[in-house]
């Protein structure tokens, strides 16, 4: 089952990458604010149902894919 995990820096966590991206966009003339840079992980997971896949990926996030101290995550499973 195909799934995507979005990992983001939590609100309030310093994100120098986001700041650099924002400042570059502004230099290019784009009016942007609050840019944050996260990470996307696409993967295939062996599961019978979307719920099962979601549960499995949550365990992956807790153990490895995200650091709960500074990052939040969101899971999308292709139904």
């Amino acid at each position, binding site marked *: 089952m195909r799934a995507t995990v979005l990992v983001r820096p939590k609100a309030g966590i310093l994100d120098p990458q986001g700041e*650099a991206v924002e400042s570059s966009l502004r230099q290019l003339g784009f009016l942007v604010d609050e840019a944050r840079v996260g990470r996307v992980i696409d993967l295939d997971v062996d599961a019978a149902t979307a719920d099962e896949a979601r549960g499995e990926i949550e365990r992956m996030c807790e153990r490895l894919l995200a650091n709960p101290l500074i990052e939040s995550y969101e899971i999308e499973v292709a139904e």
Partner: protein
Amino acid sequence: MSEVAPRIAVLVFPGSNDDRDAAWALTALGGDARLVWHAEEELPEVDAVVLPGGFSYGDYLRCGAIARFSPAMQAVTAFAADGGLVLGICNGFQILCEAGLLPGVLRPNASLEFVCMDVPVRVERTDTKFTSRCKPGQELVIPVKHGEGCYHAPADLDDEQIVLRYARGANPNGSERDIAGVVNADGNVLGLMPHPEHAVDPLLGSGDGALVLASLMDAARERLYARA
């Protein structure tokens, strides 16, 4: 009478690059350093463990995140739980944080630039196993070289756990509260971003790092005697 050489394991991960410098420095200071490959499931009989600097597993995902699951790190976790002394330098500090052996996490430098320079570091506590040879408030000059050394502390971090701070105005990476090194609550695991193993000979700029490594070896020697 010459003192017994404490036995110290220096872990080697794929991508470690300060392992040999650490082993060299520990040996120069009278230790018996042994390199241990990350795939080893058991540590040799040692009195302390050093996790060296570098880019273990290419720093993929987050620095230290993959190394924490290596077989040797499972052995280090058990060693630390048993009261064993563990020192993590730079990438070693990052690994200890990811492994949950130390609080907090290291993030990309606030400047987003890799920093490589000598920095003055203030010793906040001299009653630890890693700083016993330092004087209270002493400023050590030790080099840093990292891209991800911005320490983010958990909200409940005890001030007592902050052992080293960058001197006022000398914070090279944006670390919260100028934190350069923290110890765990039990006092047997320390992580720091500066590289004491690169500052053991005044000929190369500073010998101050030797105070940290020699303190560790004093404590390791005590442990060795206590077990004998």
